């Protein structure tokens, strides 16, 4: 296929750039965004890092829409959301570096994941090629949930590689450890220039990236305050990018701080105006972590019965994120915002 006279262009690759990215008005609801971009069998990532700026609302929406056979890739974090999807048996594969497990004094940070490993409920697990659910615990013929271990940098490099549009990225992390020994998707080679060991990390392009930002316009220019995480790489690696914004602003506002636009409009497929979409995690300059909710949820989710009750109440029991906020209570959310504004505030 010829594009502007260039015979050599790989049209298949160009075709991956979705038509949605060209629109000048990308605002839709969260329900529409998940329905439009995330299909059964897809892979996705969410923005932010451990307990901050993580789109928890999207995880609940995915559960509500009953997607199946998804894979998720993340450095560290989103324990509540990922664990929710594990509890419902929605995930086929998790590529992750860190999942809070037993850090907090005997209470499991990812109870569904631990239950799956031990008891095979709702499905069995094959974790990092090291642990598998005992054979006598496997109750169904659904293939096991596969967990693949990486380090944070290696997950970042997978996504950077996706953004670079190259097959792999090299690095010098964890050579000689057991991570490349059990994870056979990465390769240690002797580099062709200096003949020294080098670790090659396969690039990855998730189908969808859901990224929480503090400000975005209708065209999809996303601005982030505070730490950037790997969000600018995720936005370039993923085939579709959905921004969940605390504030929907006119483009004039974007011009005021262009250096904060880490996700320009050409990356973005959809913009969802969704205040408090990260709660119970926090959002820099917008609201604090709701530690009390996070931890009481966690305690309730320690048993399968408790977890399913929690899912009924807080996921299926709310038709969308705003119904969830009603249930949490806007006074509570305002209090968390006030607490954050005491120290960090996004300029109007």
């Amino acid at each position, binding site marked *: 296929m010829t594009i502007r006279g260039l015979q050599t262009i790989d049209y298949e690759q160009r075709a991956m750039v979705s038509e949605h990215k060209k629109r000048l008005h990308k605002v839709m609801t969260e329900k529409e965004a998940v329905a439009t971009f995330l299909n059964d069998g897809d892979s996705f990532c969410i923005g932010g890092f451990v307990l901050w700026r993580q789109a928890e609302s999207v995880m609940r929406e995915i559960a509500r829409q009953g997607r199946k056979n998804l894979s998720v890739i993340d450095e560290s974090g989103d324990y509540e959301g990922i664990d929710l999807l594990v509890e419902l048996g929605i995930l086929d594969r998790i590529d992750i570096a860190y999942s809070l497990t037993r850090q907090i004094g005997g209470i499991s940070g990812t109870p569904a994941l631990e239950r799956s490993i031990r008891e095979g409920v709702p499905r069995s697990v094959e974790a990092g090629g090291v642990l598998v659910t005992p054979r006598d615990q496997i109750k169904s013929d659904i293939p096991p949930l596969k967990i693949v271990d990486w*380090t944070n940098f290696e997950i970042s490099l997978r996504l950077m590689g996706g953004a670079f549009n190259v097959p792999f990225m090299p690095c010098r992390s964890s050579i000689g450890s057991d991570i490349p020994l059990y994870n056979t998707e990465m390769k240690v080679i002797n580099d062709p220039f200096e003949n020294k060991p080098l670790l090659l990390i396969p690039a990855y392009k998730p189908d969808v990236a859901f990224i929480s930002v503090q400000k975005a316009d209708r065209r999809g220019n996303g601005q982030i305050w505070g730490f950037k995480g790997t969000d600018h790489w995720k936005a370039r690696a993923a085939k579709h990018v959905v921004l969940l914004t605390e504030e929907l602003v006119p483009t004039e506002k974007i011009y005021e701080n262009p250096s904060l636009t880490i996700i320009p409009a050409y990356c973005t497929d959809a913009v969802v105006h969704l205040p408090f979409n990260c709660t119970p995690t926090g959002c820099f300059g917008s609201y604090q972590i709701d530690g009390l909710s996070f931890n009481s949820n966690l305690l309730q989710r320690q048993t399968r019965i408790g977890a399913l009750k929690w899912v009924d109440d807080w996921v299926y029991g709310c038709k969308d994120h705003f119904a969830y906020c009603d249930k949490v209570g806007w006074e509570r959310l305002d209090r968390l915002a006030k607490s954050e504004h005491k120290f960090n505030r996004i300029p109007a």
Partner: protein
Amino acid sequence: MPHLYTSKDKYNPAQLEEMEGKYTPPELVSCIASREVEDREVVFVGIGISGLAGAISKLVHTPNCILVTEAGYVGFPSLSVLISPADNSAGLMAICHQGLADVFIDLQSGLVDVAYLGFAQMDKFGNVNVSYITSRQLKMNGSGGGGDIASSAGRIVYTAEFNARQWVGKLDYMTETGFFDGSPDARKKANLVGGGPSCVVTDKGVFRFDLVSHELYLAEVFPWQDKKKIKTLKGIFPWDLKIASPLKILEPPTEREVTAAKQMDPSGQYTVASILDRPIGKLISQGKIGLEACDLMCQLGERAISEILESVT
């Protein structure tokens, strides 16, 4: 290293017992570990006790060190114990808000001098497991940035409340690289950037690594650890633990260090091991999770940060 070693003779036996009771294990570990940094170094901090050690260092010993967190916060004064490397309190008064990959690139460039890390299992040569305990079918947190940090930071200061289960002859899984089999150029052969572990700070003394054999040995103990206690300690290790001769005696946490530790976490929100014993756990177990309790938790956090903000500005 700016150590403040003193002689054991300084203290009389009665004083020693009283002295030991004065400190909690997290205080002992974080205050002693805070002395492992030199001024103007770039320091990678983790969460919990390992973060607390970096924070005390910045406040008390090394005002010009630059603290870095994984999520991308750089050069913050440290205003609270971090529960996440992406905590907003690390973003406050920071010199730079960057990204996760940027921080790991900086690490691999060799710009980070020292890093604080915790650990679950360690062997004789400082190799670490934080991924799996196979005998108990247990998946632990996993590497996070630990594997990258242990590979690339100039040196690693491991911190932990001492636990007999942590020391093993053979790791279930090597997440973080130490000195491998102890052979002289093992790390160089693996083409790793960093120098490997420099010490392990626990509430039962400080362990260091022999410069030649790279084997872990007991280097420093607290004044209240007598010969009998040291013998018991030695017996815990599954290998024949070497002990420095002479053993150095640690200066117990100073008042300034302890004050700094308390400032970071006045209500014991993060340094208390079990969540159920923390203020938040107590509220939850009383069924107080409504708006009023939320307001109380917000107030606790705000007060802690405000107080320390005043003292650093």
